[in-house]
């Protein structure tokens, strides 16, 4: 039993020093002078705008990646075609790419002198250093999660019900809405939560493509860094706490939604 206690203290001590203590310190620093400074920092126009931009980018990323994720999972699980393994590997790619490289990549393609950027500029459309660039970066980094969560569920439920529906004359669209979607819903929900978490918190990729125009292209994570550099520690901590609370909310949702058989 002593060994068990020792292991437990090592594990908890490690977590305490690595995670709990640092996060608690920031909360303490934010609120040690009461709620007042926190509120006034959070209610600043720059902070509110940053919050809005973050939420917007996350929203677009979640919608686009959920649609893509379900589609891609179906393609990967239900269809056989040459290059399927390759496609499956490519979906995971964003997990392995450094955020800074993501930013660089987007600049090279969508920047003023980029492959598409120069053509888009003819239509007066700017992507890098404006909102679409931020959105693209967010979509990039949060792309794999829905696919990764939905694919195993799809594999598990099998095709029997879908085939039954098809023999009863249901169109493939009907089959999808009535049969497939309801049964993969838990996987979708968990994937959405993971996507949201990643999209809200992205920093590196966004930092490269944003141009940091205060109030226009600054996300909440960039706002944290901006406040830090403007000697406004209260503002930096306050924005961090908002992000941390969003993270805790996400965490809570994760716990509710985590599939029974965890497949990481």
């Amino acid at each position: 039993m002593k060994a068990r206690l020792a292991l437990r203290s090592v594990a908890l001590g490690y977590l305490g020093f690595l995670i709990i203590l640092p996060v608690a310190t920031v909360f303490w620093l934010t609120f040690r002078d009461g709620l007042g400074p926190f509120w006034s920092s959070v209610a600043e126009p720059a902070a509110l705008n940053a919050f809005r931009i973050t939420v917007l980018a996350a929203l677009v990323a979640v919608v686009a990646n959920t649609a893509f994720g379900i589609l891609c999972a179906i393609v990967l699980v239900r269809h056989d075609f040459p290059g399927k393994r390759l496609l499956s590997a490519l979906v995971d790619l964003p997990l392995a790419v450094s955020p800074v490289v993501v930013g660089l990549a987007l600049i090279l393609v969508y920047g003023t002198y980029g492959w598409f950027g120069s053509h888009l500029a003819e239509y007066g459309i700017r992507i890098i250093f404006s909102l679409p660039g931020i959105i693209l970066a967010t979509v990039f980094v949060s792309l794999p999660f829905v696919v990764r969560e939905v694919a195993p569920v799809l594999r598990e439920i099998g095709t029997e019900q879908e085939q039954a529906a098809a023999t009863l004359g249901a169109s493939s669209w009907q089959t999808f809405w009535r049969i497939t979607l309801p049964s993969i819903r838990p996987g979708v929900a968990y994937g959405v939560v993971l996507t949201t978490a990643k999209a809200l918190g992205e920093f590196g990729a966004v930092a490269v493509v944003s141009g940091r125009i205060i109030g226009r292209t600054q996300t909440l994570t960039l706002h944290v860094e901006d406040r830090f550099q403007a000697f406004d520690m209260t503002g930096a901590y306050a924005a961090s706490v908002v992000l941390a609370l969003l993270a805790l909310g996400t965490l809570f949702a994760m716990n509710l939604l985590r599939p029974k058989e965890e497949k990481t």
Partner: protein
Amino acid sequence: MLRLASAIALFITGFSVFGCGVALSGGDRVLLLAAYSTPREAYAEVMDAFQRTEWGRGVEFEMSYGASGEQSRAVEAGLPADVVGFSLEPDMRRLVEAGVVAEDWDGNEYRGMVTNSVVVLVVRRGNPEGIRGWEDLIRPGVDVITPSPATSGGAKWNVLAAYGAQLARGGSEEEAAEYVRRLFENVSVQDKSARESLQTFVGGKGDVMIAYESEAIIAREMGYDVEYVVPEATILIENPYAVTETGENPEKAREFLEFLYSPEAQRIFGEEGYRPVVPEIRAEFDYPEPEKLFTIEDFGGWEAADERFFDPEDGIVTQILREAGGVR
């Protein structure tokens, strides 16, 4: 083929633009200032003052701050700035070459410079290490903070100040290079921008920070426990500003740039820790004059200095940094 792909890309962007519903263009009364990281406090005041003038009524400002080189590159790559301000002239020259800033941007009597400053040594209150000048920075055990010359304009000024100070006291070029080498042996943190260095320093790291005089003054006014020493010999920092050719609002931008030279704006700069370039206003402030003040012209101008000191292959400083890293 490329067009087809662009069309699909267009579709996706269209979707995201539509999806966000946020205006991308700020309208014709909005000016975007893209500048290096340190003058942000001064600008809060200057913009306020401009908005109270007849020209500036109803003008709104947007700001983007970052390391000087980073900002210059961003504007070159399409950041839609109306007015740009950099730590040093090469960052402006890049935009001239890219066709973003007019050739004659330095045509006025101040050669396009809006503010001046000098390189100083920032220390903790009471100067516990007894720092008096450059020679104290290479004493063993003194922990020096300066940003990285690879990204920061301020860092380049710092290095040239250190190097030039050795020449100014009669040292040879070899001795000056040796001094810089020993200096970097004592440098413990090289942040990306001057502002990040200041953050690091007021956060408690280091004994001395090499910095703009204006940064030292701001830190003091923010209530941090720092003071600064103006070394006997140091370099005059000159910060260039210009309007872009590519902005959406060139008329207002030009008016704003002109306003930066007005007594009112120059006085604000003076109060915020910068040395005004307009002599009459400069005379209102008693910034200490270093005994030996040299300029970038003493190094043959920025083009020559950049090549000689900061060339990423074989610049003097590049090589010194490599040696300090134990790589020969």
